[in-house]
């Protein structure tokens, strides 16, 4: 029984990464209608950004949590300005192919220079060590990841669903012409939104740098799971992707305990089941 609690908690930790990443994807898809396959590569760039900040400029983990998402977010906005904006109004497939190609290029460039083994990044001294919860030894850093990502997820949800800015944004995707008539600069808002989604990916990258190696391919596996999360949660649904992210982390954790060989397929089995029963995803509405 103790082991079960431990696995549940571990699942929750992984779930927080899924939630952060799928949140970014959901924001981008919901607001821009772009299926952002470059998300995994941008997540990886966030981790590398933290690594460079530490090793080149001697800037530690805490500032990196803010700086890396901004730097990578700006990179994302440049991508949106120079490439993605020309795809507005076209079929989803074009955006998917463009971002997929970008992901391959970014990963290829990083792999060319840094190989595939990865680079070390240690846990900040304030969060080292762990505590004994009785049923498991919880590394403090992992606890921090869960709490921090929950806060970020809820803040993002609040920003988009409950504030005037979010309302403008949602309106702009429904009817850009009308919103423009109110004097709002819609293209700039779209660019900033893409930057926000990308920034969330980079933030997840910084958070995961001390846990995983900083590796060029770190985003490659995770992105596929995260897409499954978004599909299960319902494309574009903010709350749906947060809840599903955490839930799937837990399901995966339990699988690792009961039948470890299936742990990297269980998410997709779950996706198939959900799509068969409810094709719009758990929280999605019919179009």
């Amino acid at each position, binding site marked *: 029984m*103790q*082991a079960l609690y*431990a*696995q549940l908690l*571990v*699942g929750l*930790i*992984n779930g927080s990464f899924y939630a952060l990443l799928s949140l970014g994807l959901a924001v981008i898809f919901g607001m821009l209608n772009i299926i952002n396959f470059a998300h995994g590569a941008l997540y990886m760039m966030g981790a590398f950004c933290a690594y460079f900040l530490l090793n080149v400029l001697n800037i530690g983990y805490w500032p990196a949590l803010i700086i890396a998402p901004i730097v990578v977010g700006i990179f994302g906005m440049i991508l949106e300005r120079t490439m993605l904006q020309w795809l507005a109004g076209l079929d989803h497939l074009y955006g998917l192919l463009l971002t997929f190609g970008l992901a391959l290029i970014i990963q290829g460039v990083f*792999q*060319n*220079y*840094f*190989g*595939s*083994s*990865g*680079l*070390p990044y*240690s*846990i900040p001294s304030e969060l080292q*060590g*762990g505590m004994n919860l009785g049923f*498991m*030894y919880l*590394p403090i*850093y*992992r606890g921090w990841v869960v709490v921090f990502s929950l806060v970020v997820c809820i803040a993002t949800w609040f920003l988009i669903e409950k504030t005037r800015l979010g309302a403008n944004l949602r309106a702009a995707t429904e009817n850009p012409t009308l919103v423009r008539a109110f004097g709002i600069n819609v293209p700039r808002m779209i660019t900033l939104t893409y930057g926000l989604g990308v920034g969330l990916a980079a933030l997840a990258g910084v958070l995961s740098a001390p*846990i*995983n*190696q900083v*590796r060029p*391919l*770190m985003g490659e*596996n*995770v992105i596929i799971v995260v897409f499954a999360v978004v599909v299960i949660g319902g494309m574009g649904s903010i709350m749906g992707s947060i809840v599903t992210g955490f839930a799937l982390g837990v399901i995966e*954790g339990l699988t*690792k*305990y009961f039948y*470890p*060989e299936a*742990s*990297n397929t269980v998410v997709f089995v779950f996706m198939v089941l959900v799509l068969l029963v409810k094709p719009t995803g758990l929280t999605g509405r019919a179009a």
Partner: protein
Amino acid sequence: MKNRISALLLGTALALAGGNLAFAQDKVIKIGSLSDQSGLYADLGGPGSTLAAQMAVEDSGMIAKGWKIDIISGDHLNKPDVGVNIARQWFDVDKVDVIVDVPNSGVALAVSNLVKEKNRVLLDSGAGSSDLTNAQCTPNTIHWTYDTYTLAHGTGSALTKAGGDSWFFLTADYAFGAALERDTTAAVQAAGGKVLGGVKHPLGTSDFSSFLLQAQASKAKIIGLANAGADTTTAIKQAAEFGIVAGGQKLAALLLFITDVHALGLNTAQGLNFTETFYWDMNDQDRAFAKRFQERMKNHSMPTMVHAGVYSSLLHYFKALDALGGNPHDGAKVVAKMKEMPTDDPLFGKGSIEPNGRAIHPAYLFQVKKPSESKGPWDYYNLVATIPASEAFTPLDKSTCPLLKK
């Protein structure tokens, strides 16, 4: 009239050439470097193996003797079907004579079968499964660098004898992991230890916490990592996070490469015991090779034992071809010649190749240095013990290779 004579002569020449084709010797060699070029094993093999092959060609002096040697490379993506498809195309279309490297035992075993069918040569350096020279041995395959027997008997026996008498395995769920767990279990039991259990994880796992918790709960003294590359480094790093070593359990990285230690950093990796057959800083010849290699590598990493194995096995292959006076394009014949000749090269020293295709040379038990002991980048290993060639690999009388039963 003149035209008819030349046509006749041409026809005769072609007929003669055709008749001789099966025995034709020429001085052309085509090498295929088949590896994981982009995934979790790309640093231990990958582009570095292609570079090692190039260096072997340059250092062998074969070009000066009039040989024409080409190298092509391919990415098997750690998928046996992809690897076999590339190899098949190489044999049928590109006329490749010899395939080198092939990390990932699943791919290596599949390719080895095809190599036998097409009568070419496989010089395997990257794969670990000892099955390549046991039940699945072929007259066309030479397994050069290390195998799971070496790792099991080096690290497994040493740690068990040093008091680590209860084990729990984290095993990569494919041919290599299974072979390594099997061989290590045998070595641990032979040394008087017992295995409490194990868990199989998918290849390329990014989060080991669930598996580590199970290992922790087992209360085994040693947690054996029967995996490789990025899987091993991730597991080690996360084990530190979960306080496994601090809690009194010990990690045994059964297969660890210098690129893995580099990726972990000495702070995390210090004190790990593991077995390898090559380290760049063992003697002047190794250092000279490593320095040239490092200068030419894109990410300036030192050669792993897999890279060294590709280099040395090719040097020996060239020697055999030179002794044959030409390339007969007959894989089994070349491999037979290679087995006949003693091996002697700058990196692995003097040795031999057993009838089952196993190259024999010493192995070394290393320990990762403390950060304070290291004099700079890539100065990572302390030599703990040397395992003589005769003990480092499966004894011939225990080998299950069908080639031996006659």
